[in-house]
């Protein structure tokens, strides 16, 4: 199992941390139902490391912790 920490705007009634089985980050995105319009600009961090490209193909293993963080970086 892997755990996913959801930011508030993406919870939609779900708890902050949810668990699921998934072999890739692409499966996590599908399971979460946030494969959405391009404007939903969130990045994923796996065990604290931000993924900046090749997102869907990132391989996961049991115990991995995923966090969804805002992707923008201009302020």
């Amino acid at each position, binding site marked *: 199992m892997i755990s996913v920490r959801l930011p508030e705007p993406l919870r939609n009634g779900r708890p902050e941390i949810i668990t699921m089985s998934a072999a890739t980050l692409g499966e996590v995105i599908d399971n979460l139902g946030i494969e959405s319009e391009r404007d939903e600009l969130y*990045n994923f961090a796996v065990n604290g490391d931000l993924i900046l490209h090749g997102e869907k193909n990132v391989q996961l293993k049991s115990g991995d912790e995923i966090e969804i963080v805002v992707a923008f970086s201009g302020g």
Partner: protein
Amino acid sequence: MPILERVESLIERLARERQFPTQGQTIFIDLEHHEVRRAYIPRHVVEAFLGGRGVNMFLLHNLLDPSLDPLHPDIPLIFGTGILTSLVPSAARGNVTSWSPETKVILDSNAGDYFPSFMKLNAIDHLVVHGKPKMWTLLHCEDGEINFVDAAPWMGMDNLDFRAAIERDFRGQEGRDFGLASITTAGENLVLCSGIMAGPKAIYARGGPGAKMGSLRLKAVLIQGRSADLTPAHPHKQRNREVAEKLLNTSVVKNALKKRGTPFLYKPSRMLGAMGTKNNQETTWTDKLDAENIDQYRPGMEGCFACPVNCRPLNDLTGCEHVPHDQYIKGDGPEYVTVGKFGPNIGISEVHQVLRLNNICNDLGLDTASAGSAIAWAMELYQRGMIHPDVDLTWGNYDAIERLLFMTAKREGFGNVIADSSRAVEMGHYPPEALDYLMAVKGLTQSDPHDARILKAFALGLAVATRGMDHLRNRVTLEINAKINDDPGFKRELYGGDVSAEPNSYDGKEVAVRRCENIFAVGDAVGMCRFTTKLFNSPSLPGYEEFVDQVANVTGIDLTVEQIDRIGLNIMGVERMINSELGVSRKDDTLPKRWFEESIGVGPYKGEKIDRQKFDDMLSRFYAISNLTNEGLPQPEFRRELESVLTS
């Protein structure tokens, strides 16, 4: 040629009548002789540079005498408002332009809040001030009249007291009745990292505009009333509604800017291992400064004139046992830049300390990017035993930092060194070797606290930005976005060419920087906020299509998307021509030594730094697609085109 002759010569070439509906005057003010001259920018100049930053550069090019010093009273200070400012949602911005006393290259700084809108609401598109009066002056503009008011009653006041005094003395409320641009004691004392305050927090920050305004003994410009005829050429409100809807439906606005403001950006930089820490010796810092930890101190959000976003967080430390309950218990901000510069960059990890320093800087009129960077630079030199100041500059020494800010505004003790900002070596405060640790380009310390050794488009942008090391001129922010990186077709469409999906690759990054530099320059010319301009925080925000439509509706000037993009290139071109006059060349389009020689030590891109040869090749490619020579100047044909507008 003296400034009076330059102004005379220029006015002869300007128009005497409005060139389009909603156009305001360009007003030349001789502070020494209390003389006011008025003209209009000719239509062919507007079609080449639009307004705001673009026309400011036209004016500076014509009025600058590079044989003088930036603080000489013959060097003008130019306020400009965007061509759409106050007329389109989120277009509330304007620029101030001059020759920077902090960097000795162009000074061009952008602010919002209310002052630029009140310029427009009073039919003033550009305000050119020069000369040094015997007495400090407050310029009071009301219903088209300019009054020279003796500023003696307000001298020595900082931002909080001054704004309160003006509301009392002129019987009005800022934002509702007037707009105000003013300096603090730091500006009066010619502190090079001081800005011009345009609100409680809004500041024309970069390049030392506060010092430049102080050199003209100009305490403030107060613009009161709403007397302009702003009837547009064509109805524009329906398109405005669409622009507002587009803004408010964008994810970054809905989920981040409206809720927390820019501090949400701290976390991704920290997690990437790219948060400038201890003068960029390190690149990650505590999660205690993540935006959600500021939530408890944020009572609400504020916004600029007629902007539906409201992205400016307020703060209130009432009840926090660690801070004195004085005038700094509440304030505006912080922005992400301030969190970074007064957090990790100087070794501070407590939210309440960052908020208090933010509130103090707002009152003292200090640019948090330059002041924070100057302190971080001093701290590293202290750490290395290269300097021996009268202040304990140990990383994270909060009490010393707070005291140092007040000393800086007054140029007292070691504050006099911080007040000289990036010029501390030139001024004889530090040994020449200290320059090895200065995180600056073209004399301007970095604005965004993000360490750009990983992101190569960001790095190139910082190197080529005409005003120095500042992200707001051309940052390819979306290179950090995985969904866009993983969609090459969409990315090609966004930037107009192939750009590598890998953030740390050099391939094609020049294409993205070129596209961003153009649209951001156009944004500054129309008066649109950077945060809500396409490509800065989202690919879905208003961009050229909306700008072209509203320029046509508001002014009657029809432009194509290609033409307005060319205006962005024109603005960059004239800025490079001015910088060339000031001695800038290819050697100055570079990065701090540390980024070439020291690697990132943490995170998924551990080991990353800037490769000199690959950077140089990328720079050459950038020049080539920017219609620039190998020295970074407009190609001869491009230069002739620009000169025909600048001098005709």
